[in-house]
C-alpha cells in the first residue's frame, strides 16, 4: 500500500488533537480502522475543519490511504473539508421545524448573518436535516470548535433569537427536560422519564433498575429467548422485524465472538423517542444491552448515537462509566460470571447510517454505504462477526419483556402488535412530545392526547419521511402493524406529524424530496438518480410547470417509485418515494385534475400566504 501524501505538515494544534485522540493506541503497530470516525470527530471539534494537512497526518498515523480518509470525511455532513467558522449553527429545516417557522429564521439568518454555508468571521450557518428536537422546534444545533469545543441542541423562539445565537449570544432555552404528560401508571418505557435522575445509577436501581438483568441471570439465556419469542415483539426502528427471531439467530450461531449493537442513529424526520429514552433513562439501554449480551452470548456491545444528539451521548457516556465503576459492566456482572462491556460511538451526520448495515460500515470507519444482504448481520455483521443490532426502543421493550414476562407484555396491544409503543407527535398540535400507547389505540386517541385541533387537520404524516400521509378523515385508524398495512400505510419509526390547513402540502413534499436527495448515500443508481428526479418532479408540480404533460408526470412518478422500491440496495431508496406517492394518492395535488374537477379546493397547492384559513373544512 502506498501511503503517498503530498500535503504540508500538520499544524501544532492538528498534531496535538490527533495524538490526543489516539492516545490509547500509543504502542500499537496498527491502529484499528474503526478509530477513524472518532479521530475525524476530534479534529472537527478541535480544529473546526478537516484540512488537507490534518487528514494527511491522520492517514500517516493510522496507515489509511489519504484518499480513503478523504472519502470517509466527505461522506458525513457534520464533518467539513473546507475551512469553516469557529461557531456553526445547524438550523433544522425538516418537516416539523418548517411547520413551526424555520423558514422565517432561514431568511433572517441569510439577511443578517451570512448566506447559507459561508463563513463570515466567527459566524456560519447551514440548513440541517431533522435534528430530532421536533417537540420544541424550530430547533438548531450550535457547534463551537476549538480549545474548548461545545455542542448545544437548542430551540429557537424567534428569528431574532436565532440571529443573536448565531452571533455568539447565549441560548436561554432548556434543551433537555423531557416532559411526559400521561398518567405514570399507564407507562412502561417512559415510566422513569422526567422522574428518575438520569445521572444517578443509584436512582436507577432504586426504581427497579437491574431487576431485569437479575431475572435473566436467574432464569437463564434460553428462558430469555423463549419469552422474547412468545412476546412477539416487533422491532421499533421502522422495519418491524420480529426481535425474538433476531436474538435466537445470533444465540444459535456457534461463533465464539459475537457483538451487540444499539442503533441510536435516530434520524427519521419527526422522530425523537430514542433521544428521550437515551437522555432520560440511559441506564435502561445499558441494562437491556447487557441482557441481550447474556441471552445471545456476546460480550461486547456498541451504542451508535447520531452526531446530532450531544445530550444523549454525554448522558450515555457517563452512565456507561458509572455502570463500569459499579461492576455492572465488565467481568462477572452481578456475580453471575457474565462478562460484557460497552463502547459509545457517535455518528458524523448521515441519515443513511440508521440503516443497519450502513451503521456497521460507519462503526468500522468507512463511508456509511449499506451492504448487500444476505449475508445478514446476524450471520456476518460488525467486523464480520455475528451481530445483534436493535433499535433503542426495541431494546427497552425487550428489557420490559424480561422484567415482566411475555404474558404481561402481551396483555397490552393486539394479537399481532403486542405491547406498548412510543409515538412522537409533532407539528400542529398543542402538546407535542413522546406518548406511550398500547398498540391498537387509534390515531384519533393519540392526537387527542397531544391536543390536535381535529377540525383543522389537513394531513398526518405517519412513520416519518419514509412513511405515508393520511387524510384528516382517516385518523380513526388503529395504530398497529396490521391495520396500517391494510391501508398501505406504516407506523415506521413512530413519527406522527400533524399538518393543519394552514400549510401547503406541496411545500411539505418539497421538504421531504429535498431530504432524500440530500441523504441518499449515492451508491446505487435507482436511489442516487431517482431521489434527484423525484425532487425535480415535485418542484415542477409545485410550480405548476410540467415537463411534457401532467399525464406524463404521473407516469414518471409511478415509474420512479417502482424502480426505487424494487431495485434500490437498501430501505432508504426502497421507501424514499413512499410519502410523496401517498400524498399524490390521497390528496388532490395534480394541478390539471385540480382545475378541472375541483375548482374550489385549490388550497393544497397554493402558497401559504394565499391560503384561506377554513375552519371546519374537514
Amino acid at each position, binding site marked *: 500500500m*502506498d501511503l*503517498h501524501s*503530498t500535503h504540508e505538515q500538520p499544524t501544532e494544534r492538528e498534531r496535538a488533537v490527533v495524538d490526543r485522540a489516539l492516545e490509547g493506541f500509543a504502542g500499537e503497530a496498527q491502529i484499528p480502522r474503526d478509530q477513524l470516525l472518532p479521530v475525524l470527530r476530534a479534529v472537527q471539534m478541535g480544529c473546526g475543519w478537516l484540512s488537507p494537512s490534518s487528514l494527511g497526518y491522520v492517514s500517516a498515523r493510522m496507515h489509511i490511504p*489519504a484518499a480513503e480518509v478523504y472519502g470517509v470525511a466527505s461522506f458525513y455532513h457534520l464533518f467539513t473539508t473546507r475551512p469553516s467558522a469557529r461557531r456553526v449553527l445547524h438550523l433544522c429545516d425538516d418537516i416539523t421545524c418548517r411547520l413551526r417557522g424555520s423558514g422565517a429564521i432561514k431568511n433572517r439568518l441569510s439577511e443578517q448573518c451570512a448566506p447559507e454555508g459561508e463563513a463570515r468571521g466567527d459566524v456560519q450557518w447551514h440548513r440541517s436535516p431533522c435534528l430530532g428536537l421536533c417537540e420544541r422546534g424550530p430547533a438548531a444545533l450550535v457547534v463551537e470548535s476549538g480549545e474548548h469545543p461545545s455542542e448545544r441542541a437548542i430551540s429557537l423562539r424567534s428569528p431574532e433569537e436565532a440571529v443573536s445565537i448565531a452571533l455568539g449570544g447565549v441560548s436561554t432555552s432548556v434543551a433537555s427536560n423531557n416532559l411526559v404528560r400521561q398518567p405514570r401508571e399507564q407507562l412502561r418505557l417512559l415510566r422513569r422519564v422526567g422522574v428518575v435522575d438520569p445521572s444517578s445509577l443509584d436512582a436507577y436501581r432504586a426504581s427497579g433498575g437491574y431487576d431485569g438483568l437479575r431475572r435473566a441471570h436467574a432464569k437463564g439465556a434460553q428462558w430469555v429467548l423463549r419469552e422474547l419469542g412468545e412476546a412477539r415483539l416487533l422491532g421499533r426502528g421502522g422495519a418491524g422485524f420480529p426481535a425474538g427471531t433476531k436474538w435466537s439467530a445470533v444465540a444459535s450461531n456457534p461463533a465464539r465472538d459475537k457483538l451487540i449493537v444499539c442503533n441510536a442513529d435516530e434520524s427519521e424526520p419527526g422522530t425523537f423517542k430514542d433521544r428521550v429514552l437515551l437522555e432520560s433513562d440511559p441506564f435502561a439501554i445499558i441494562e437491556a444491552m447487557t441482557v441481550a449480551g447474556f441471552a445471545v452470548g456476546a460480550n461486547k456491545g456498541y451504542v451508535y448515537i447520531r452526531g446530532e444528539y450531544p445530550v444523549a451521548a454525554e448522558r450515555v457516556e457517563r452512565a456507561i462509566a458509572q455502570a463500569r465503576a459499579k461492576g455492572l459492566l465488565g467481568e462477572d456482572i452481578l456475580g453471575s460470571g457474565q462478562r460484557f462491556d460497552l463502547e459509545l460511538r457517535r455518528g458524523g451526520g448521515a441519515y443513511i447510517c440508521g440503516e443497519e448495515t450502513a451503521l456497521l460500515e460507519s462503526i468500522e470507519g468507512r463511508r456509511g454505504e449499506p451492504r448487500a444482504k444476505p449475508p445478514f448481520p446476524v450471520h456476518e455483521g460488525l467486523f464480520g462477526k455475528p451481530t445483534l443490532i436493535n433499535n433503542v426502543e426495541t431494546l427497552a421493550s425487550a428489557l420490559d419483556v424480561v422484567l415482566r414476562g411475555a404474558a404481561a407484555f402481551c396483555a397490552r396491544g393486539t394479537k399481532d402488535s403486542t405491547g406498548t409503543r412510543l409515538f412522537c407527535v409533532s407539528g400542529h398540535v398543542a402538546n407535542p412530545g413522546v406518548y406511550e400507547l398500547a398498540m391498537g389505540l387509534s390515531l384519533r386517541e393519540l392526537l387527542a392526547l397531544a391536543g390536535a385541533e381535529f377540525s383543522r387537520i389537513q394531513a398526518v404524516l405517519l412513520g416519518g419521511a419514509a412513511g405515508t400521509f393520511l387524510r384528516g378523515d382517516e385518523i380513526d385508524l388503529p395504530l398497529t402493524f396490521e391495520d396500517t398495512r391494510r391501508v398501505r400505510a406504516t407506523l415506521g419509526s413512530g413519527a406522527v406529524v400533524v399538518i393543519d390547513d394552514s400549510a401547503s402540502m406541496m411545500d411539505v413534499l418539497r421538504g421531504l424530496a429535498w431530504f432524500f436527495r440530500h441523504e441518499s448515500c*449515492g451508491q446505487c*443508481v435507482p436511489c442516487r438518480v431517482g431521489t434527484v428526479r423525484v425532487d425535480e418532479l415535485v418542484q415542477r408540480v409545485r410550480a405548476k410547470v410540467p415537463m411534457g404533460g401532467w399525464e406524463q408526470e404521473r407516469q414518471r412518478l409511478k415509474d420512479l417509485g417502482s424502480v426505487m422500491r424494487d431495485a434500490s*440496495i437498501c430501505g432508504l431508496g426502497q421507501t424514499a418515494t413512499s410519502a410523496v406517492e401517498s400524498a399524490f394518492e390521497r390528496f388532490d395535488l395534480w394541478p390539471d385534475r385540480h382545475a378541472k374537477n375541483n375548482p374550489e379546493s385549490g388550497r393544497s397547492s397554493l402558497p401559504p400566504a394565499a391560503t384561506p384559513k377554513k375552519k371546519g373544512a374537514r
Partner: protein
Amino acid sequence: MREDKRRGRDGGLVQIERMIEVTIDGAKVRVPEGSTLLDACKKRGIDTPTLCFAPNLTPVNACRVCVVELDGARALVPACARTAEPSMVVHTDSERVRSARKMVLELLGSSVDMSATPNFDVWCARYDAHPERLGTPSRAPTVVDNDLFVRDYAKCMLCYKCVEACGADAQHTFAIVVSGRGAHAKIATEFDVSLPDSACVFCGNCVGVCPTNALQFRREHELRVAGEWDESSQSVTKTVCPYCGVGCVLELHVQGDEIVKVTSPSDSSVTDGMLCVKGRFGWGYTRDAK
C-alpha cells in the same frame, strides 16, 4: 477478484465442485456451488445487461441493471452479486424485471453521457428505455492532468470499478475513492488533487475496467476530439509484453500504423486483465524515428 477463480489458478488441487440446481425462467439449471445467479443465467444462455460487474472484480451491485426477480424476495436482487442457492426460482424477463431495467437505463442515460458505453443503445431498445424523458445528462468537464489518460466526468456513472481496481482488487494503490455523498458523490483523489499529485502510479487498470469510457487513453481522447477515432478500422493484435519476465498478455489496438490503446483480457491467467504502467502505456518507442 472472486475467490473461486483465485483458488483455481493457485492450487494444483482438484476442487470437487458440488452442483446445485436453480430454476431460471422455468428451466432447471445446474451450476457449481458458489456461482452467482449471473453465472446461472449465462449457463442458460440468457444475455444479462451488466455495467458495474466485471469478472475480475468483486461485485459491488451498484448499478442495478442486472436485477432479476427471485421468488420469495420482497425486492429484486442483483444477479451479479447474489449467490445461487438450491431451489431458487428466478425470473429474468418478468414485467417487474423489464420495468426496473428500463428505469435503471433511463436514470443512467438521463444523468450520465452513456454514448460511448458498449451495448447501451441495444439495451435501451430491448427494454424500451427513453432516457431523455427524465432529463439531460451531465456536462461535467473532462480532466486532463497527465500524459497517459484523461477523466471524462460527464461519462462517469459511479460504478466503483476504478476504485476497486486501484484498491484491494488489483493494484493496492488506493489513489482514488468515492468522495461526497448522494448526487454529489464523485470519484476523486484526496481533496481532488491532480493525479500526478496523488498516490496514482499510472498503471491504467482503472482505464482498463471503466465501462463507460469515462477513463480514456490520452491518445484516444485526442483522436476523438479531432474526430479521427475510428474503431471500425482498428485491428487488435495479441502479444506478450516485452518489458519483464512476467509475460503479461497484451492486446494492441492499432489504428493506421499507430498503437492507440493497450488492453489485457480479463480472463488471462497471467494478468486477470491488469497491467502496469509500462505494459499499458510504454509503447511510444514503436514510433521513435531513431
